[in-house]
């Protein structure tokens, strides 16, 4: 029930931000952010209540995982908004949040109720990989934004969104910071995941498809950051690879969870 309201608030937030984009009344962006923030608070309340009711962190079901993921995405949006003051990010992130949120209704009945859901390492592993992935999504979003904005500036063809998007350097900065923070957080999550696999499952989970994809994702982003740091990768390359890296994440989450059941 609470999550229904959360999704409704996120929808209202997206609606107001879209209106702001077209009508350019600055108050609308503020209202959209208030809806997003209220939605986020309720999203967290919902997670806590679910946790309190069952005594298990709600990450043992696909449904619970999606609820955590939506909260993580909105949390990262709020964090990046406070840093960059760019409401246009919400237009990219909110549709994804809403779609993920709507998926929870489809997964409502699926409850594998795995007995490892209470492990300490899992509590570290899950939130960190989810938040890390949320940052990677923002890196991918900023990558797309970079392509669009760069294309407009290069070809001197200023479309409707030209004035709404941040300057190229800001987008590039957003991409760089999202990658760096995301990588650090994701690394912690991955290490916790490996330890969890070693201790709780005597290494049998180490070869699971999900973990292998997590390592691949980690490696892809690690390489992007490494090349970026050594200044060999122009912003365009970084933008492109952020998108590629994120596709790896999508495969890891949905491909593996839905089809391989790793």
């Amino acid at each position: 029930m609470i999550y229904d309201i959360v999704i409704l608030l996120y929808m209202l937030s997206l609606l107001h931000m879209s209106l702001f984009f077209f009508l350019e009344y600055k108050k609308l962006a503020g209202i959209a952010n208030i809806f997003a923030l209220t939605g986020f608070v309720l999203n967290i309340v919902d997670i806590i209540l679910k946790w309190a009711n069952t005594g298990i962190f709600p990450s043992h079901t696909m449904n619970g995982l999606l609820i955590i993921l939506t909260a993580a995405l909105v949390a990262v949006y709020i964090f990046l908004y406070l840093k960059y003051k760019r409401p246009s990010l919400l237009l990219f992130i909110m549709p994804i949040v809403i779609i993920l949120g709507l998926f929870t209704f489809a997964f409502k009945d699926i409850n594998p109720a795995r007995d490892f859901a209470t492990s300490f390492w899992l509590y570290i592993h899950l939130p960190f990989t989810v938040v890390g992935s949320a940052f990677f999504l923002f890196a991918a979003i900023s990558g797309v934004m970079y392509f669009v904005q760069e294309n407009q500036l290069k070809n001197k063809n200023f479309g409707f969104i030209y004035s709404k998007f941040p300057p190229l350097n800001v987008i590039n900065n957003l991409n760089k910071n999202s990658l760096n923070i995301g990588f650090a957080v994701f690394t912690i999550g991955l290490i916790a995941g490996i330890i969890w696999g070693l201790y709780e499952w005597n290494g049998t989970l180490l070869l699971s498809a999900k973990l292998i994809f997590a390592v691949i994702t980690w490696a892809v982003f690690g390489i992007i950051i490494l090349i970026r740091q050594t200044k060999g990768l122009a912003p365009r390359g970084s933008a492109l690879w952020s998108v590629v890296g994120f596709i790896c994440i999508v495969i890891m989450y949905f491909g593996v969870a839905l089809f391989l059941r790793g």
Partner: protein
Amino acid sequence: MQLAVLGLNHNTAPVELREKLAVPEDRLPYFYAQILQNERIYEAMILSTCNRVEYYIVTDDFLCNVENVLQIISEENSVDYSKLRNHTYIHCGSEAVRHIFKVASGLDSLVLGEPQIFGQVKDSFRLANIHGKMDKLLKKLDEFTIKTSKKVRTNTGISENPITVSYSAVELAKKIFGELKNKSALIIGAGEMCELAAKHLRNADISEIFVTNRTYSKAENLAQEINGIPVDFERFTEYLKKTDIVISSTGAPYYVLEHAQVKNAMTSRKYEPMFFIDIAVPRDIDPKINDIENTYVYDIDDLKSVVEANKKAREKEAVKAMEIVEQSVNDFHKWVESLKIVPVIKEMRGMFEDIKEMELERFINKSKIEDEQTKKLLNNILNSYMNKVLHTPLTNLKNHGTSKNKYTLTEAVNTIFNLEEKK
């Protein structure tokens, strides 16, 4: 009491006439004294800028007193009255209110949305308060004008899109680099356009400006003016690797900057973005440079098309701004109308107070009540009764008295309670 404005601006009068009628700050006290000699002009404010001269007056006889002010302007400035009349516009009531809101928001300016006029209007109100006369109406108008203009600038993009070539170049640079604080620029040429662009860059807090010119002394002069560093023309390409923005406007009949030179510079700067602004005709910068990754080359035609697009964007924003202005005109109108309701409410309450006092006195005398406490108690009962009876009609009068049917309402109250007669 009515607000009226009479004046002329860049649309109605040529510059020869405008400059003759301009009122410099030191002459303001004299002009105010002349206008306020007329006892039926109760408040006055003069707005004098390079594009307009306007007199705002509050009077009870609009037609007669506007003519009087025109006479004064004509005599004091030795301008033929009929000539002055032909170039003057006159607005009164809501039209005058709408006019000042439009002026302060930059909607009536030569350059649509220009921000300087707001400060000029604010100053004019301040000076009118010192040298002229501002009472209830003009003070409220001042408050509403500032509020409306701020609302227009915050809620619309009327001043956001630059409409001069040099300024739009700097705005484009901001769209690439964000803040220009830690960026540096190279100016090739020392002409007027370069100077203008350099000044805009300086205002945008750019950290370093290098200036180069075939004649070194000219580069030195411009560098001194804009607090830049002069660079020898033969060596300017060495500075490319540490320059983010290049502005060029020389008279050279060939490309001053070639593709290969920029390619080399880009390799040394590890493809950090570079922005080239070519204001010269014939062009100074090879357009193929735009093909190099992370370089952006804009020539004069590109910048002109940006300016044209920005003008259109401002016109679009002006429609939105007019909606805000109309809302404010309505609000101001409501405030003016509420002033007319207040006396009716006061009259009505006064009449009830009188009746109460009269009846209380009559009853006390008749009943021979001596005890002060009983008298006080009776007074309190009657007061409480009167307040309860009057509460609903007075609240409704306050709320609906400013709406369209206010005349019927106030007239009805006047007729029912014989207020006019009692006055």
